[in-house]
């Protein structure tokens, strides 16, 4: 079954990449005019896609700390896989938000002219630190295996030889040193991941003008959502990409991951209930209007069907009643991870799709001066392209790098 799923993902990624190229072309040639976000709904699918991918990355990374920092023996074999998943998700997130800018060529100003009073100003530095940490950590996690695969024939051997950067010592002492470095790096990574993803939540949470975002719970929900969705993605990846697919050892890892994800998902739903029920009960207009859009607006099905039914009820049933089956747990992980985009869309859009002042909707017309938003063709295609690119990056990296293979080095 693992091979079939892998093949489906390969085909989906290639098709998505090819079809999505048109979206990239539109973004480069026509630009923001081909988008449906604008002045009243200034952030759309790409911003939602960015927080979606960054959440997947943070979640997958925090799972890796279970291995390297907390040294949970049962999960030892998936450390590299979770780091690599975090890396490709981070790439997708940053690429998407980069081309969401009105002037992507000025992105360097984020570094040279950072405003540290802006949460967004902090993000660029936190991402840079996180990106470097991920690369270094992944290298130390793979180092002994890079040495081991250096003798392989062809491209893989050459790549392994190059990436080991001449550090070929794989003695017990050297590997213990690696493990200690990994522990330190992972320990730095925990507060860093909490800071950057809690930071993304705070980026929304601090906006007083949007009562739907303006809550102390927002950063917390971002973190728990990241853990649930990133953990789910990792569960899906581990279920079908290994290591040692088919073995009893592999099944135990997947089952354990499934249980963690179940707990995280339930906690996330609890926070969601807290946020929604409290706001709806008090029914202060601006926030209640946003929630009305989520629950009963034109896109009610995004919440009820995509998020609650496919993204929560079905996976919970799978995890509770079929929690011992690798296929069922993997499927549950995939469903949660994929549908989590609906959660992110329902964070970004409803806050923006309500009038800030009565009468604004009809006061003036023009492109972008509307509160009705659904992503344009360009937005969907570019989103699909970026996700597919990251997917291909994962699949190719998986083929070439020793991400699951652990050779016992003599």
């Amino acid at each position, binding site marked *: 079954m693992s091979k079939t799923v892998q093949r489906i993902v390969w085909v989906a990624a290639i098709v998505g990449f090819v079809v999505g190229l048109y979206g990239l072309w539109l973004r480069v040639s026509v630009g923001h005019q081909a988008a449906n976000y604008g002045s009243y709904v200034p952030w759309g699918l790409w911003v939602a896609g960015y927080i979606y991918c960054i959440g997947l990355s943070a979640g997958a990374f925090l799972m890796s700390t279970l291995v390297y920092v907390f040294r949970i023996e049962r999960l030892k074999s998936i450390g590299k896989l979770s780091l690599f998943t975090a890396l490709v998700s981070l790439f997708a997130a940053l690429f998407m938000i980069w081309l969401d800018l009105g*002037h992507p060529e000025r992105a360097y100003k984020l570094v040279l002219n950072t405003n540290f009073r802006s949460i967004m100003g902090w993000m660029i530095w936190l991402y840079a630190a996180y990106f470097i940490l991920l690369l270094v950590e992944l290298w130390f996690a793979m180092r002994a295996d890079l040495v081991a695969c250096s003798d392989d024939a062809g491209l893989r051997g050459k790549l392994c030889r190059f990436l080991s950067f001449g550090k070929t010592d794989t003695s017990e002492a050297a590997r213990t040193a690696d493990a200690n470095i990994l522990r330190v790096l992972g320990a730095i990574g925990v507060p860093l991941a909490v800071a950057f993803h809690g930071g993304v939540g705070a980026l929304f949470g601090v*906006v007083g003008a949007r009562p739907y975002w303006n809550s102390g719970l927002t950063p917390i929900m971002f973190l728990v959502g990241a853990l649930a969705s990133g953990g789910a993605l990792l569960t899906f990846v581990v279920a079908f990409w290994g290591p040692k697919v088919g073995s009893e050892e592999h099944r135990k890892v997947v089952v354990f991951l499934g249980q963690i994800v179940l707990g995280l998902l339930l906690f996330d739903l609890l926070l969601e209930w807290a946020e929604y029920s409290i706001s709806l009960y008090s029914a202060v207009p601006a926030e209640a209007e946003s929630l009305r859009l989520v629950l009963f607006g034109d896109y009610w099905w995004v919440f009820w069907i995509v998020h609650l039914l496919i993204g929560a009820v079905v996976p919970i049933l799978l995890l509770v009643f079929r929690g011992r089956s690798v296929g069922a747990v993997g499927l549950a992980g995939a469903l949660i991870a994929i549908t989590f985009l609906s959660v992110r869309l329902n964070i970004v859009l409803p806050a923006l799709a309500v009038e800030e002042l009565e009468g604004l909707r009809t006061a003036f017309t023009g492109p*972008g001066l509307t509160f009705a938003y659904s992503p344009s063709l360009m937005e969907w295609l570019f989103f699909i392209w970026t996700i597919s690119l990251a997917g291909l990056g994962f699949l190719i990296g998986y083929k070439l790098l020793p991400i699951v293979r652990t050779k016992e080095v003599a």
Partner: protein
Amino acid sequence: MPDLLEKQNVFVQMQEDIKRALQKPVDERRWVMVIDLRKCVGCSACTISCVAENKLPPGVVYRPVLESEIGTYPNVTRRFMPRPCMQCDEPPCVPVCPVHATWKRPDGIVAIDYEQCIGCRYCITACPYSARTFDTGHTYDEGTPEQMVYELLTNFEYGQGWDRESEGSPIGNVRKCHFCLHRLEEGELPACVTTCMGVANYFGDANDPDSIVAKLISRPNVIRLKEEMGTEPKVYYLV
């Protein structure tokens, strides 16, 4: 006698208020706008004069006139409320900018550096008045065979020439009302104020006790929008 007649013209008075303010150092000026909602008939001439003055492309608007209906048929009346940028004393749009592209000038006007703005649109989300819009580069002659000359006219916001032909800034930027700063600094009233046929708009320096606006904003029937946000707007409405 001619002097007295001149004094009676509110536009002339306001222009003199501005000229007095311009004599002072910039940080001693405090530009405010007062809009008399009882006089506004909802003609939207201010919106259009603003579009013309700043050569605003489709999708960018600095000063829409919001209409709301009060009561139910047959007892209905309408209220019109022009909404420029409030030039808040505590502008929520400023601290969120990640690259210092928007700031509060010493005279209180919230300005944008078009060459610095990266177009992330965070400030749009942070403004409680929806006063900021995003310029995606649309033109009015889209889908027509000929490019119109008016599409290529230079606009002079912030006292600089912005050439639309180059397809650079302000395309891809966030834009907003700046009280026609480029006109102000030449001693002229903002375009919306001069255009208002009912003289519902007043403009001047609130730090000058002799100015028209200083007298108007000390009245009890003055309100500001969303005071609860703590933004300290500098646009006042007479109700």
